[in-house]
């Protein structure tokens, strides 16, 4: 039978890359920018993190490198959309297509290598505590960091001046510009934050979650992160719920496949994506909620005329 405690432990680890990418994209979208390149940034983070971790033997340097690589890619997006005023949808797609190609190119010599292990935070003895041990105390630092990041993002967006300015830029860039805020600069910083988060998520995928490098290993995680932002109605804590819900489905379907119950494998393989679509439909069909929470300037080009 499926053990609920190991399932919950597994779902937390499965969800973390997506949660990290989603929280980054949430901040980007709050600033009024739609970056569809999450998938590309994640896979660049995965490959950069893997290369540096294998090269130096340190997973921590790997995580930093993953963030740096994806941030560099996000700067390309920022330059195109904020300075050269290109279409955000098309540029985001280009980011994903380019990122997948470049990552495959960079990662070619690294197939079949095992990365250095990432240590857990709490000593092994504490994992043995019933229920709480495996669920809460058996993880590595990135998992705790991802939850802390959700809390920090919520606090900054809701209770600080920085958050207020960011939201103002996302709701009405012309008004924010008229008040003297540097719309482009704020958005570039938000895009970089999104890149760093996606890169960390990608590096977590290749260094801890899988752990190895295979071409196209993100298999849509970046797109699911984008869907989770919509599911979350742009609220950080709901992104956490959404990511864990998705991770739960993904972890559960793997266990069902292993248990060989009478459900077709194709259906189980597709279930995380199908559930994401169904959830998207449910959220978007509620007209009042979807319209109230989406940043009003999302995806619109800002061109200061004066």
């Amino acid at each position, binding site marked *: 039978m499926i053990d609920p405690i190991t399932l919950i432990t597994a779902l937390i680890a499965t969800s973390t890359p997506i949660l990290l990418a989603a929280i980054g994209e949430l901040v980007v979208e709050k600033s009024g920018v739609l970056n569809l390149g999450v998938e590309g940034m994640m896979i660049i983070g995965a490959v950069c993190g893997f290369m540096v971790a294998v090269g130096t033997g340190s997973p921590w340097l790997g995580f930093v490198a993953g963030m740096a690589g994806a941030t560099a890619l996000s700067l390309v997006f920022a330059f195109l959309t904020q300075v*050269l005023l290109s279409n955000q949808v098309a540029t985001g797609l280009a980011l994903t297509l*380019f990122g997948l190609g470049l990552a495959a190119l960079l990662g070619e010599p690294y197939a079949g290598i095992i990365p250095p292990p990432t240590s857990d935070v709490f000593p092994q003895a504490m994992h043995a505590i019933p229920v709480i041990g495996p669920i809460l105390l058996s993880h590595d630092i990135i998992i705790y960091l991802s939850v802390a990041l959700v809390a920090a993002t919520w606090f900054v967006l809701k209770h600080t001046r920085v958050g207020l300015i960011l939201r103002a830029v996302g709701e009405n860039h012309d008004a924010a510009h008229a008040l003297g805020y540097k719309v482009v600069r704020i958005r570039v910083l938000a895009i970089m934050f999104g890149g760093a988060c996606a890169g960390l998520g990608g590096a977590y995928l290749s260094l801890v979650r899988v752990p190895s490098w295979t071409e196209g290993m993100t298999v849509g995680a970046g797109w699911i992160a984008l869907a989770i932002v919509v599911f979350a109605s742009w609220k950080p804590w709901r992104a956490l719920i959404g990511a864990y819900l998705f991770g739960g489905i993904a972890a559960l379907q793997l266990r069902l496949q292993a248990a060989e119950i009478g459900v077709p494998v*194709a259906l189980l393989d597709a279930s995380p994506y199908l559930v994401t*679509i169904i959830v998207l439909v449910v959220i978007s*069909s509620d007209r009042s909620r979807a319209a109230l929470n989406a940043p009003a300037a999302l995806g619109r080009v800002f061109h200061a005329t004066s």
Partner: protein
Amino acid sequence: MIRLIKRPTPSRGWIVATPVLAVIVTMIAGGIMFALLGKDPFEAIRIIFLDPLFDDRFAAYSRPQLLVKAGPLILIAIGLSLGFRAGIWNIGAEGQYIIGAICGAGFGLAFYPSENVLIFPGMVMAGALGGWAWAMIPGILKTRFRTNEILVSLLLVYVAEAILASAATNWLRNPDGAGFPGSRNLSRHAGTANPELLANTGMHWGVVAAFIAVIAAYVLLNKHVLGYQIKLAGQAPRAARFAGVNPTRLVLLCLGVSGALAGMAGLFEVSGPAGQISIDFNVGYGFTAIIVAFLGRLHPVGILLAGLLMALTYIGGELAQLMMGIPASAIQAFQGMLLFFLLALDVLSNYQIKFGREAVT
């Protein structure tokens, strides 16, 4: 100080010039990438862009491949361009391509071993219907529940891949294939084959369909009220609503046409060049077609040229892999770069660039 001043309408000259410029800049950047890989950049660019067409050793094989690879790219990109013009983003053509191939192949295999001449037209219809139905999922969810079509169409690609894996290993598997994954070979059976129509040209029914699609799209966009509505909805959505354009109908139409064309492309591929349904018969044409659509400026004739160019990079990429050991993924990065430079240079068609400080008024 550099300032951008929005042009009232995009510059016609730059609209034509930017794709050409983007290709040149990509060649330079790609050359730098190849140099970083330790390969001679000039030789690499020559092998990718010139040798497939002009080198005596390769041209006999490569020239027909140009149409073989351009056919599906053009067919899919024409469909996508209609939606992209209207602001409807179908980015899941890869999924519609897979489902179209499965439906068409399934139709053909249902009549195996009959060699009736009506089977192949039926397969094309089934392929188009399969792709259409797969694209209707995001279409109906968008019009009925306002669900984002970008995310749904893309997520459905992964669902289609799961269905493909199950078809190739399970319910479409060749019963005489000794248990190996993959369907019966469609291209070697007279009833289901999509043959080369003129010897050594690479011309098969999919290429014919691509040319017809180019002409039909040209007529639609320039002579038909529907084409006018598509363009209007993209450029001025508010004005389009006042002019009586029905947005629901437009979404379903654009997604439906692009899905049907992608499904047909999948069927032509699986019954011709690919030959059979296998786990990985799809090679990402559905995604590359997005680049083709943009590089062709969403214009039918432009897409025709862009499709041929992108096909050339595929063939040249294979050649570079063979001759110089340049990895296949380098070409994928190269194609992605091309889209980047195109979008970056687009600033020239939409904005005037002024140097110097703005005069105080």
